[in-house]
């Protein structure tokens, strides 16, 4: 009643198909802008390599152990029908060979684990290195948006932004994290792992990316009703692009040129907006809500909730509670013309 060779062959083919299927799915999940398996910077890459090395080696060992266990089961089963002899432990050659095999395997395990340990330690050490001169960014968490300060030793070069993080490629950036209300967590899978933003405390981590692109960060600590809608696009520029972007971003908002935007600016200042929002260069200094100096050039609004289009912006201004219920922004009943002018003005704030 042993399994026929064809059965075994069939089992092997089936298992190969399953394995390749799993691999295909895994590989498909390896790309993307919010993917820890698609590293965009050296530290994450080294962590990835460690991950894959451990996974592969462990998988091989696991498969070998499973195969050995199955074989032990099957072969034992084959023998028990015929061999009902009592088991006698006699220190003979076969026994010594078995002991040798076990010792060898244990030794191999220890060696492999030690190698893992050393590899892990070196990767960890490399990650923990503090680079000396870096750009510093302060990230302050709010319910449910991100406040970003680009720090400079010259205070007049400080730049305040919100809901988008821009960093240069190829150099480590120190990000100092704190929170204004509850604990949040900053997590950009492609670049670095999670670090909590704790109220009353400043923690820091280093972002090091070398592949320009747009990556997706997420709040990773439950922080209230809209925790799920607290994303942060992380845009990695090439060094030259970043310098240009920062210089542009430091300049105050330009005076709107066309009349509808000018009308919109009046509405912005005289209405409810300036009590909570700030725009550099304009008499709006509110700090309750995100800084809107560069709202016109953001890819998304409401902390990554919606793409930044006229329609979405209008909908957000008029009825934010239907998009992100519980957000601090109140509804603003604006007449159609006023809303259009206001959006025209906000679009000029690049």
């Amino acid at each position, binding site marked *: 009643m042993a399994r026929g060779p064809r059965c075994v062959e069939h089992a092997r083919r089936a298992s190969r198909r399953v394995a390749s299927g799993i691999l295909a799915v895994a590989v498909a999940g390896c790309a993307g802008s919010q993917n820890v398996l698609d590293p965009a910077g050296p530290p994450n890459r080294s962590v990835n390599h460690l991950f894959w090395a451990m996974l592969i080696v462990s998988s091989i060992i696991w498969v070998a152990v499973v195969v050995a266990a199955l074989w032990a089961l099957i072969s034992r089963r084959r023998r028990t029908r015929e061999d009902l002899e009592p088991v006698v432990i006699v220190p003979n050659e076969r026994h010594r060979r078995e002991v040798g095999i076990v010792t060898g395997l244990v030794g191999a395990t220890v060696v492999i684990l030690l190698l893992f340990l050393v590899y892990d330690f070196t990767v960890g050490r490399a990650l923990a290195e503090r680079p000396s001169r870096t750009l510093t960014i302060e990230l302050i968490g709010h319910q449910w948006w991100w406040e970003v300060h680009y720090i400079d030793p*010259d*205070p*007049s*070069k*400080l*730049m*305040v932004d919100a809901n988008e993080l821009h960093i240069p490629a190829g150099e480590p950036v120190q990000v100092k994290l*704190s929170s*204004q209300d509850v604990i949040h967590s900053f997590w950009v899978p492609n670049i670095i792992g999670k670090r909590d933003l704790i*109220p*009353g*405390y400043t923690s820091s981590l280093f972002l090091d990316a070398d592949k320009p692109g747009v990556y997706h960060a997420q709040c990773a600590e439950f922080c209230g009703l809209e925790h799920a809608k607290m994303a942060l696009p992380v845009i990695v520029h090439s060094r030259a692009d970043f310098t240009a972007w920062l210089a542009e971003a*430091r300049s*105050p908002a330009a005076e709107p040129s066309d009349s509808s935007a000018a009308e919109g600016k009046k509405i912005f200042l005289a209405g409810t907006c*300036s*009590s*909570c929002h*700030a725009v*550099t*260069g304009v*008499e709006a*200094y*509110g*700090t*309750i809500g995100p800084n809107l100096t560069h709202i016109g050039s953001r890819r998304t609004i409401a902390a990554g909730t919606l793409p930044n289009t006229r329609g979405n912006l209008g909908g957000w201004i008029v009825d934010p509670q239907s998009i992100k219920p519980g957000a601090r922004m109140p509804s603003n009943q604006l007449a159609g013309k006023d809303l259009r002018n206001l959006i025209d003005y906000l679009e000029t704030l690049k």
Partner: protein
Amino acid sequence: MLARGRTRCAHHCWRGIVAIAVATTLLASCKGDREREPTRLALVARPGPATTGGDTTARFSDDGQWVRPGKDFQGTRFSGLTEINNQNVQNLRAVATFSLGTTRGVEAAPIVSGTTMYIVTPFPNFVYALDLTQPGLPTKWTYKPRPVNASQGVACCDVVNRGLVVDNGKVIFNTLDGRTIALDAATGKELWITQVGNINIGESVTMAPLVVKGRVIVGVSGGEFGIRGWLKGLDENSGNVAWTAYHTGPDKDVLIGPNFKPFYKSDTAKDLGVNSWPPDQWKIGGAGVWGWVTYDPELDLIYYGTSNPGPWNPEVRPGDNKWSATLFARRPETGEAIWAYQLSPHDQHDYDAVNEDILVDMPWKGQRRKVLLRPDRNGYFYVIDRQTGEVLSAEPFGFINTTTGVDLKTGRLQYNPEKATRTGETVLYSCPAAPGAKDWQPSAYSPRTGLVYIPHQNLCMDEEGVEPNYIAGTPYVGTNVKMYAGPGGHRGLFDAWDPVGQHVVWSIKEDLPVWSGALVTAGDVAFYGTMDGWFKAVDARTGKPLWQFKTGSGIISQPMTYRGPDGKQYIAVLSGVGGWSGAIVAGGLDARDSSAALGFVNAMKDLPKKSTKGGMLYVFAL
């Protein structure tokens, strides 16, 4: 035998005579010292004749007037009148009273010019002219400027007014809603009104103007409202604004030009009023002027300091935050800045620099120097060369743990990092508290004793930084504060400070903060008032209490003295508790919230039992 005996006797006698002569001489010289308690051998400033310069002609001769709160341009608050002195002041009695018709804090000084006394009240800023020639001081005229009622909503620290000025037949004063008004001193008719402040952006005016060389110098309050502070010079005859000097922003707005020569390097770079702030933050950076302006006619310089930077929470405004908490020397006619010194860069604790700069000439390390004496909010008594801005000395006159000293090489205040105000953190036991070791209440200087008479407080605080939000016309502070008595438990002090030896000569502890101004006379009497209403006279040399009188309400105003039309000397003071320290009474606040009135309520919970509201003039004479 007799001859020998006589010779021996003569020898003894001769020794005895010499001994007696020496003893008599010693005793005779001792008599003069009896008035001074020999506690310390203090090297006292002996300023010589006409140290107050300019105004007075002969040593301590006095026209008996008091035409501006500081008495003279140098702000000494010293009167040369000697009729009332430390031997007869116990005979002082009240001879006239006048009700001001108000119930808020009274910080003004009564002003006497000619035979008329002029008083400006807290909001609604009534101006009374009282006839000193008639018994009972009847009113000659009353002026009601009717400031906008809503201006009460933008005054951080009670709706006070620190006084008016009489110059060239005009009474000039400021109203809470930001107007400077000139009246004819004889008739009370309006001569001109100039709107200088805007309450919708949090500006109000509480200071007493100074008139110098035809310019009315006026500054703005609102450091707690995120204003952009300024000082203006108005033309005395027309009221037109001749110049405006802002205290943040580019050099051209601060009226910093080619003649600007600050003493310290950190005050020299270009456009520091912009570059020492994050972008745009200087536009809401505070740095108003609501305290004292003094003037040196020889050097032709006005001296004054600017208020705290806004908001109180320093994390929002990294950088030195120039020109907040800065002492300026400017030309009165053009407003041009000649030098400046920032007393508290990147202030963390509301240490406004608006306190008085008393101008004296005194010996300093062997030379006579022209200095200014300033007991500052940050707790240091500064002696600064008023020609160059060099800090000669800065010694603590109160208990300080927020800073460790002033580095005289760089002029920089050294902060204690443990007491830095941080968002989300509560820092306990920071001393001095936000009102400082001394707030606006002006000290007085006696050229006779060479001492500065400092009324001040002893308070510490717990501070918590919170995120501030700026909305024009609303407070922009960002700090929760709770104040309480400092070490020793006494909340107030009246000290005599030796500016040359840099130490206290005598000190009187008071339970409540001493929030009134000081007055000192050539009769060697110093006067001050307490917040529970006692008006006190003490010996200017020893501090011995000589006389006191209980007025109807706490005293936070500035006592003064004058010679009446009958030739007699009178002392006058206004009572009426309030101000920041008395807000619990003036505003009827609730003591259960220890952060009320920016934390002061917690330190003054017992005040309602000790004083009620009111507003009254008291005049005393022998």
